[in-house]
């Protein structure tokens, strides 16, 4: 599903964000990407959605060689790989339902499909009653659930979450991770970058740890820190 081969990223200011990364993630896997701030988690995530290009190496996602993707094919690629951000990135001037529907609109899906899928997806994330409210009136956890609904409504191959619980309290964070695992159970590959220890320890999924741009650990059913719980 996802394959990174000898991937390195050096930013223009000379910082080595990633060094010789080799990583393979299978279909329907749930992977935690852990590491302190500046370890390279965000850079890795940006490479996957082609917000950044690697300095060297190959990035292959869902059969697409991300580097060789022509610009006009980029929108089609991004419709297969959904993204959830720490700061939600909802459209403040659109209602919850419109935000979620936007994921289908950008893909030019017919209105009938939108009318059908939006309530269904909002129900899945438990936000039916907020369909017509604006995102900024919701709590952080609710906003993140809107973002997740938007990400999954297109039934993407891969869902990438970059610190999705970074702005949330522990209970809400647990709810969000439960939701992501539920989505994973429905068949979507989920990659979650985080430095939330408890979350990772509780979930017992595959853990990939980055230190200074290098993978130092890749453990199935792992914890946040090696050998400790």
């Amino acid at each position, binding site marked *: 599903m996802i394959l990174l081969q000898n991937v390195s990223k050096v930013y223009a200011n000379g910082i080595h964000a990633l060094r010789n990364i080799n990583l393979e993630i299978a279909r329907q896997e749930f992977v935690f990407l852990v590491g302190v701030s500046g370890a390279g988690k965000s850079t890795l995530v940006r490479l996957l*959605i082609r*917000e950044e290009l690697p300095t060297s190496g190959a990035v292959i996602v869902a059969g697409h060689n991300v580097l060789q993707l022509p610009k006009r094919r*980029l*929108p*089609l*690629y*991004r*419709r*297969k790989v*959904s*993204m959830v951000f720490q700061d939600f*990135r*909802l*459209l403040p*001037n659109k209602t919850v339902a419109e935000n979620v529907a*936007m*994921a289908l*609109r*950008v*893909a*030019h899906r017919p209105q009938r499909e939108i009318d059908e899928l939006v309530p269904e997806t909002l129900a899945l994330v438990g936000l039916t009653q907020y369909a017509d409210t604006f995102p900024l009136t919701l709590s952080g956890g609710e906003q993140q659930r809107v973002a997740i609904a*938007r990400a999954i409504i297109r039934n993407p191959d891969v869902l990438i979450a970059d610190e999705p619980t970074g702005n949330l309290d522990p209970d809400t964070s647990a709810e969000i991770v439960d939701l992501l695992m539920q989505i994973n159970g429905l068949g979507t590959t989920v990659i979650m970058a985080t430095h939330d220890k408890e979350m990772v320890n509780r979930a017992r999924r595959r853990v990939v740890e980055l230190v200074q741009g290098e993978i130092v650990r890749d453990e199935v059913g792992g914890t946040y820190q090696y050998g400790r719980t």
Partner: protein
Amino acid sequence: MAALSYIATMSGSAVVNAWRHRTMTVITVLIVSLMMTTLGMFLVVENALSVMIANLEEQVNLIIYLEDESPPSDVLALRQELLDDPRTISVEYVTKEQALERLRATFQDDPDLLQPLLDNPLPASLEVRSDDPAFLQSQANTLLGNPIVEDIDLPQDVVKNLIRISQVATFLGYGLGAGLALVALFVIGSAIRLTVYARRGEIEVLRLMGASDHFIRWPFLLEGVFFGLIGALVSSILVGIAYIWVHEVLQQLISFLPVSLDTTYLLRLILILTLFGIAIGGLGSYLSVRRFLTI
């Protein structure tokens, strides 16, 4: 059909966007209207000036007053002789009756003034138009000796100088107009850029969701056109009122010549403002959004 519903969806999206960002919308519409009104007002003044110049130019004629009893063949021969010269633009034969008619038109407000006239005292004339004052001057000198010529009337140097000044003014006017249009372009473009800039986060999110450039650009483009159209509407009303007012002033200023209210010009002005509004609104949005479509 699909294209039509796509455009309908995008227009709806543009209207909703404009409404939800109404503060920005109002500010932008005000700026666009103000700039376009300024441009329109300038065009009206420029037009008034050129009407005055046209009136002055029509007076650069050599008028040959003919003796009342001149044989028609001699008059025709003189007319042909003048027409044969390439420097002549036109020669108009004005009969005694036409001359009187003109006089009546000038004094249509006080017909009593012409009441005492029993006989037509006005001579028939040939009005020679040329853009070469020297040619008219030489003709005037020669023709004074012609037996069928009663008198010669040639505009004074003052008129010629006035025309020259007016022409310089018109030329400056075009320059100023072009400059003003550029300023309007820049100000309106900046205002639209601000509305786009305020929503750059939105554009980025849409891009990361896999929206195509078209999908992102169209609502902005239509919104820009919408701004331009409102600006055109506001400025057309104000400029229309100004034009009618200026026309009245002009009428009083050059009462000796009837100046009709030129509705064709007014419609053309409104058309120009509308096209300008659409073009600048659309182009301003297009260029502004393009900057944020590089991610």
